[in-house]
């Protein structure tokens, strides 16, 4: 049983308020052979400038330092790709650095950007992320992704990351899911939901109108996970502009955009699941120790935490983030979220790690209908809609961009511009995509607060980004 010190568990603190001012993104797709990565990054930055009615040159004039999220150099065969993009965006002589934390790269890029503003080093920072996963065929792509596992102890075992992940899925499926068909159908429902929401998103790579049966009949990748349970392999870019209050208000002064307060926190756990040691469950603000006293009795095999069924990194970023931003109960305090649905089962695991449901009860978030834009059981708005972008399963997983895309999506809801961004006929045409006849506005009306989780591999790095309308904070800024 390992323990953490008070110093390690201290609530993080920013030295001043930090704001998300604007953001943008490119089209996402499995392959974009007609465009270079720098073109996609220019698309993202240009969109961010347009949202605040500035030219790209005017917006660039505020930026003081840059963080670039790009995970897999070997996919694009370009070391220091960050320097290439920095040059092509014309941002010399600003300091810049590349961020690499696997699937959490986008979230980690925001983490660094937010801390840089919070510390006072910069008043305005660019967080830009991208990935280029179309320069090799899929099986070689799977090999390259497997290089993110331990190369001596794991990668030679099939060179397939899904396999390293799926052993955890199997454990969860057996211990908490009890191998029930109803649980498997709940997993499939997540895929149906995310591919379905992707139909309303012109940026999304995999819009599909499918059924639970379609998911259950798709090819097995690693049982019980099937092809439609898995996230996408993508190309694309996304960016965000992070600033202090004065600079944020100045940048947004000629637009309807209201800069949003942003907090970003991070957690970690072993790269090799093999190295996970037992510990007590770190409790979130809405949990008490008695909640888990009989966990082993209710779910035999669940007594070893985090074992192979929970993500300590996800739990810890929420542990830090909720206390930092004043979130007590995510279902009560937040209005919309984007989770890292690398696989349908990890989506459920994350509900528990971040306190939407207690450990063992994640499936009820889906089965209750709370996770939908419109609860299919009641016809009323879902209590806490998740992944209205389509998530990693329906929208994209252009790794370095993913966490930023999720954050932009949440901001769209709080800004009240979801329909304007996603319903624009010209955007659908520009992306050579057909807007569906039954296109539906997924704006979460009245959204004031949201959250995005960005997650690496088998949980080695996880970030929690919390956005709030500054007039609807949960905690006063007494410490500044």
């Amino acid at each position, binding site marked *: 049983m390992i323990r953490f010190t008070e110093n390690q568990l201290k609530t993080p603190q920013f030295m001043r308020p930090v704001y998300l001012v604007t953001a943008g993104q490119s089209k996402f797709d499995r392959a974009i052979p007609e465009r270079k990565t720098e073109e996609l990054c220019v698309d993202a930055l240009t969109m961010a400038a347009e949202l605040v009615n500035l030219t790209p040159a005017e917006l660039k004039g505020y930026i003081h330092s840059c963080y670039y999220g790009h995970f897999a150099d070997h996919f694009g065969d370009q070391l220091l790709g960050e320097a290439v993009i920095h040059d092509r965006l014309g941002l010399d002589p600003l300091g810049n650095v590349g961020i690499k934390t696997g699937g959490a790269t986008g979230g980690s890029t925001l983490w660094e950007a937010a801390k840089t503003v919070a510390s006072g080093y910069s008043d305005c920072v660019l967080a830009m992320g991208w990935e280029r996963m179309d320069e090799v065929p899929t099986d070689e792509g799977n090999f390259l992704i497997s290089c993110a596992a331990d190369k001596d102890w794991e990668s030679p075992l099939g060179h397939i990351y899904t396999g390293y992940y799926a052993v955890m899925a*199997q454990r969860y499926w057996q211990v908490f899911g009890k191998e029930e068909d109803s649980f498997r159908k709940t997993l499939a429902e997540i895929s149906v939901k995310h591919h379905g929401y992707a139909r309303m998103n012109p940026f999304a790579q995999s819009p599909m109108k499918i059924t639970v049966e379609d998911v259950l009949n798709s090819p097995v990748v690693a049982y019980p996970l099937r092809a439609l349970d898995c996230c996408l392999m993508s190309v694309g870019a996304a960016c965000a502009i992070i600033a202090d209050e004065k600079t944020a208000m100045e940048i947004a002064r000629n637009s309807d955009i209201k800069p949003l307060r942003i907090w970003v926190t991070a957690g970690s756990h072993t790269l090799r699941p093999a190295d996970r040691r037992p510990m007590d469950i770190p409790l979130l603000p809405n949990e008490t120790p008695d909640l888990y006293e009989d966990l082993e009795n209710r779910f035999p095999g669940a007594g070893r935490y985090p074992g192979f069924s929970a993500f300590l990194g996800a739990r810890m970023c929420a542990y830090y983030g909720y206390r930092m931003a004043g979130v007590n109960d995510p279902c009560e305090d937040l209005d919309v979220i984007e989770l890292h649905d690398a696989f349908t089962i990890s989506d459920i695991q994350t509900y528990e790690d971040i306190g939407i449901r207690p450990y063992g009860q994640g499936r009820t978030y889906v089965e209750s209908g709370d996770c939908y834009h419109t609860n299919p059981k009641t016809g009323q708005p879902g209590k806490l809609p998740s992944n209205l972008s389509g998530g990693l399963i329906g929208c994209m997983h252009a790794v370095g961009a993913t966490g930023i895309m999720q954050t932009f999506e949440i901001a769209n809801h709080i800004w009240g511009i979801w329909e304007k961004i996603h319903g624009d006929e010209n955007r659908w045409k520009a992306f050579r995509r057909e807007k569906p006849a039954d296109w539906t506005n997924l704006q979460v009306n009245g959204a004031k607060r949201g959250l995005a989780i960005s997650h690496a591999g088998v949980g080695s790095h996880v970030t929690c980004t919390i956005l709030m309308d500054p007039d609807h904070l949960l905690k006063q800024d007494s410490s500044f």
Partner: protein
Amino acid sequence: MSLYGNAKVKNWRYKIKGNFHFSHSPSPIRNVNDNGHLLGITKPRHMIYLHSYGGEAPFFEGLSQGKLLGTRCDNPGCEYKGTIYQPYRIYCPDCLARCTELDMTETAKNRGYIHTFMTCERSGAFNTLDKPIKFINIEFEGVSTILMSYLSVGEPKIGTRVIPIFKKIDPSYTITDLSWVVEGTQADQLPDGFSF
């Protein structure tokens, strides 16, 4: 045909022999929907890396000799003294003292069972294992961690007792030299090159 690259270490320096890279010409990628205009090129590359196992080398050598080595922290000043690690850790993750090497072969034969598993139908490029691959994670009584490996004989199930087997004939000196079979498997059922 030139010699395929190989290496040895002499006087603490790599001595390489043969070709470590093989060149091929790029070819154009053209857009057939746009009059065959050039979009890009292929970039063939075949190269050989050198990789050191460093302090973990005894573990990989041990597999080829039919031994499963683990480590234990014996630092009297460490809060977690006595913790046993499999995978083999060179240093204790808590106090960073050098761990003591242990031969865990008998422990593995008598006290290993499946913590979780997965049957994987697909693999990435350069995979050397037969598909479907039965990934298993093995928990040992008295060991704080849970080793990832693969099952060669039998059907995986949580809680099933498993026995290690080793590729002592023509080993690859990688983690794939270690595999597992369900308890009761006979020697004549083992894959080529493997033995108990």
